[in-house]
């Protein structure tokens, strides 16, 4: 039934106005459902209000910060005013310093993920699918995951020097754990009824992996990927601040030496934006790769 049918019909629900006077306990009220003229209007109002309210909140904070800087409550060497940050950003872009730093950092994160993610996923699948794989791999991974990755920095430098390899290796290793743990858990929590179905149907080993194990594991893997991205940025900042001659972290250390708080804030803002972008990336991946999951 369409809504116009309801309105046209002699239904008592349609006959009762929404904000009409109460006529006793037996009075019917019209539910403000979507599609009704009144309801649409209020919904649009609310969503617009939510968006702009959030924006107003951010603008308000920035404004207070600017005012506090102008009034001299915050000194520029402690925290630069928003306008100073923007002009510092513009200057860094104009000289090309920001771009080259970003590029260096992005490359490290990219290679760290490109090595660590497949490694973690393959190890998790091997450990998840075969008993001997689990015995060989899982104990080692579970032991290593409690070693703080940052503590391994010294060893990496000892082995690999202060070049790119040490930084990328540390990011790869750090990224591997969330991928491994989430993927392994996903393989192990596959509904045994699907395995029974595979037995009845007579699926071979490879078909079983392709048709059941991999797709069933994908949601868990993507959760791991989201965590891995966060870990990658974290380790990047750390690695670049310890020893580097390029990248966002290096820019921060340099700015710290010269008391340029505006440059530090620019770099931090870059990290925030990059983190946000990777999150959007994983969300998009989830939407594309998990079309069967309802509500996406």
């Amino acid at each position, binding site marked *: 039934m369409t809504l116009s049918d309801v309105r046209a019909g002699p239904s008592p629900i349609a006959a009762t106005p929404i904000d009409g006077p109460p006529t006793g306990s037996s009075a019917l009220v019209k539910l403000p459902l979507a599609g009704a003229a009144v309801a649409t209007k209020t919904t649009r109002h609310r969503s617009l209000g939510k968006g702009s309210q959030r924006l107003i909140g951010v603008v308000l904070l920035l404004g207070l910060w600017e005012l506090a800087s102008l009034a001299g409550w915050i000194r520029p060497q402690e925290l630069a005013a928003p306008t100073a940050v923007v002009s510092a950003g513009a200057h860094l872009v104009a000289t090309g310093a920001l771009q080259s730093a970003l590029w260096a950092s992005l490359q490290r994160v990219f290679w760290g993920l490109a090595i660590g993610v497949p490694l973690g996923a393959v190890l998790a699948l091997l450990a998840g699918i075969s008993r001997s794989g689990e015995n060989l791999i899982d104990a080692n991974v579970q032991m290593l995951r409690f070693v703080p990755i940052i503590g391994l920095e010294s060893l990496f430098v000892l082995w690999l020097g202060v070049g790119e390899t040490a930084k990328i290796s540390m990011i790869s290793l750090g990224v591997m754990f969330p991928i491994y743990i989430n993927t392994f858990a996903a393989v192990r929590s596959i509904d045994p*009824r*699907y395995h*029974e*179905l*595979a*037995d*009845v*149907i*007579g*699926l071979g080993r490879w*078909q079983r992996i392709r*048709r*059941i194990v991999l*797709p*069933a594991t*994908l949601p868990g893997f993507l959760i791991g990927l989201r965590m891995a991205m966060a870990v990658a940025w974290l380790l990047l900042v750390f690695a670049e601040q310890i020893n580097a001659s390029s990248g966002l972290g290096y820019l921060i250390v340099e700015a710290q030496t010269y008391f340029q708080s505006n440059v530090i804030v620019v770099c931090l803002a870059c990290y925030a934006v990059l983190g946000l972008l990777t999150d959007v990336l994983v969300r998009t991946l989830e939407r594309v790769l*998990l*079309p*069967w999951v*309802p509500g996406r």
Partner: protein
Amino acid sequence: MMIQATVVAPDVAVVAHGLRRTFGRREVLRGVDLEIRRGEFVALLGRSGSGKSTILRALAGLDRGATGDVFVPQRRAVVYQDSRLLPWARVLENVVLGLDGPDAAADGRNALREVGLTGHERDWPKTLSGGEAQRVALARALVRHPGLLLLDEPFGALDALTRIRMHALVQQLCQRHDPAVLLVTHDVDEAILLADRVLVLTDGRLSLDVPVLVERPRRIGDVAFSALRSRLLSELGVADSSDAPPVHPRQEYLT
């Protein structure tokens, strides 16, 4: 337990001899002897926990812990109470799961047409109703041309109206494809409506084995129907309180 693919006799689809199964110290099956002819529709009744599904799993070849001699056809298919469709595979992919060869997709489409789901090939299982999902599961079973079709309470989770439609569909499909069928159910009426023969499992043994001589189309409430119903219910340890017209709405089943 060894499942052997040797043909025992030309018109026999299933032979089980001395089928036993214990879980821990509990003896669930204490020597079940069972024979199903080709194309025969057998219903297996029993109280919940009586081991009905254990027999079905043994015949499906899923239970390595059972003992006894079991002979079944090479091609077997199971339809469960839950449709057990893979949520990440579209309907057609679910139907032809594990089949390869150039005709797989065409066979799958045919099977979907037979269960009345043409046009749903590219749907995701989560968008289907319970009845539709069960019909996909039925198509997935039939597309394999099973010599033995094992139905493990396949109508148990459906609403009453959908169940009536599914009964008719299963009858029609079984007539066309003519597999041997073992239907595990706790619904006496369903057993009488569909089966050629009804078995009752009590205390780990088949305590009753009766042919259903009610003429088709079968109607709940017919004299022969009611008589068999009372007998089966008393075998199951339930008093049949319906000498008066049955509480069910009068249903007609067209075959």
